[in-house]
């Protein structure tokens, strides 16, 4: 049957290995910087490592699972929605927490940190939903 309603287009399963490889690379970059093997400013290295880590997380999110069917796609979309709501909630609530408890309570999150936490939230929700399906 020709599908009119297209599902999300995902990367093949092998890209999971590529994503984990990129993740290790970002860790390695930080490690080399700490050991002073790389003589580049630490802030630049941290920024590059964060971006590389973000790319690996994105790759993990858009890569197919071993068994991909309509239920896993539904779980995927629900987890996407949950992480989006989480992100918006954090952006709204964080200034309020700053206002109520002062800056010492919570340090301000940058865009990369927020995106990383959204990705982690996505993985947690997806894992829980897959376990309870």
């Amino acid at each position, binding site marked *: 049957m020709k599908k009119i309603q297209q599902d999300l287009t995902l990367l093949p399963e092998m890209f999971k290995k590529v994503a984990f490889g990129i993740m290790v690379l970002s860790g390695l970059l930080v490690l080399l910087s700490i050991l002073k093997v790389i003589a580049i400013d630490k802030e630049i290295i941290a920024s590059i490592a964060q971006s590389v880590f973000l790319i690996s997380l994105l790759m993990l999110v858009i890569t197919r699972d071993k*068994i991909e*069917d*309509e*239920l*896993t796609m*539904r779980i995927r979309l629900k987890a996407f929605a949950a992480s989006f709501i989480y992100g918006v909630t954090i952006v709204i609530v964080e200034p309020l927490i700053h206002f109520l408890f002062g800056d010492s309570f919570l340090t301000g999150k940058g865009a990369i940190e927020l995106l990383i936490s959204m990705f982690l939230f996505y993985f947690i929700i997806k894992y829980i939903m*897959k376990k309870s*399906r």
Partner: protein
Amino acid sequence: MKNTIKVQRATRDLTQEALAKQIGVSRQTINSIEKNRYVPSTVLALKISKVFDKSVNEIFELEEED
């Protein structure tokens, strides 16, 4: 929506895993459908009915709250 997949499987001595393989989904998806936790798409419902050689209405039935 209730269904009779478990009964149909039992009469044909078919495991969840075997049924899942025939229609190209995971065993967990079959389990979720059987326990009424997930309502399958029309395409999947038709595939299930084809395996059991029954009409969709014989396998899936609407409940009052649907």
